[in-house]
């Protein structure tokens, strides 16, 4: 290693950024070149000064201000959403036809109810398929998604291997107990 290359690499050597091979070459050069050694010691002395320079503790109030600002920005976001909605309503209220609005909302509600009932119908079908599979009985299921009547007929006792069974069918429409129906069979209804 020559003096020019050595001086270029001194900073990286002080910062421990040289690979082992280059660092070894540089160390070797420093043992033979007094000028480069003096340069290295001078830079090293300066680095010691920087290492010893004071590290400051931030004021604890900084976090309080950060937290306050973050909360404010989050609140600002929802304020913005709310005020935009209010603006839209205020701007277009004149054009809104009340029967149309009510009709649209009713249609949306009906669509949601249909989807929800269809989901429950699928759940019941899966349950009956399970009973059929495990009891080797034929099970038929009829369901009227818009009515309260659920008709289930079993042409063979699916529980003939059990003395007592407990079966819960719980249909919870829209997460409301008002629409839920439950059937509990404490005893085998098909045993004598």
């Amino acid at each position, binding site marked *: 290693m020559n003096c020019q290359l050595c001086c*270029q690499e*001194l*900073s*990286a050597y002080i*910062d421990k*950024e040289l690979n082992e091979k280059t660092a070894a070459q540089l160390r070797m050069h420093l043992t033979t070149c007094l000028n480069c050694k003096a340069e290295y010691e*001078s*830079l090293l*002395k*300066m*680095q010691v*000064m*920087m290492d*010893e*320079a*004071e*590290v*400051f*503790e*931030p*004021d604890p109030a*900084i*976090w309080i*201000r*950060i*937290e306050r*600002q*973050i*909360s404010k*920005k*989050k609140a600002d976001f929802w304020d913005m959403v709310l005020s935009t909605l209010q603006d839209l309503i205020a701007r277009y209220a004149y054009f809104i036809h009340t029967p149309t609005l009510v009709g649209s909302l009713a249609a949306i509600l009906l669509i949601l109810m249909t989807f929800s009932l269809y989901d429950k119908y699928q759940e019941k079908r899966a349950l009956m398929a399970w009973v059929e599979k495990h009891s080797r009985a034929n099970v038929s299921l009829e369901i009227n998604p818009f009515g309260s009547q659920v008709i289930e007929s079993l042409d063979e006792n699916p529980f003939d291997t059990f003395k007592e069974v407990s079966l819960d069918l719980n249909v919870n429409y829209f997460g409301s107990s008002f629409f839920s129906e439950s059937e509990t069979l404490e005893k085998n209804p098909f045993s004598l």
Partner: protein
Amino acid sequence: MIDLVRKAKHDDVNAFHELYKLFGKDIYNFVYRLTGSKEDAEDLTQETFVKAFQDLKNLREDSRFKSWLFSIARNEVYQRARRYGSRVKPLEEEAIQIPSTEKTPEEAYLHGELSDIVQSALDSLPLKLKTVLVLAAIQNHSYQEIAEIVGRSVPAVKTDIHRARLKVREYIKKYLSL
């Protein structure tokens, strides 16, 4: 740390507070060394963390949070330098040099205030060189991390750190035996 970053991404302020406890002091000292002013350092630390919280969802690799945070702090300092000029040194070397500390290096040395000497020497540098030197020599970041923070190549960073060291050494040499 990665777990805290993930939680903070979902607006968990407590997790973000833990991240502040981990890096707040480093960011404050980094910004303080760049600006030479405690008031500016407090404001910029606050702005850095608020911006980080807002933009956290855009961070692709959670493991690079530290470098990403420092790059935000650096950008905040640069923006302030462009906006106000103030105490922060301009980006170009040709710019006029106005030391931020009130004491001269001799006065600082006489009072045994090493930190002030270091700060005066740093303030003699243009902001670009000061940034890489503070990150390497005072905050002990690797050259790879510094390259990520300043958005430049490792060889370019290495060259700038060496240039900065020589300039600071020349500055201090006038007053101290180096």
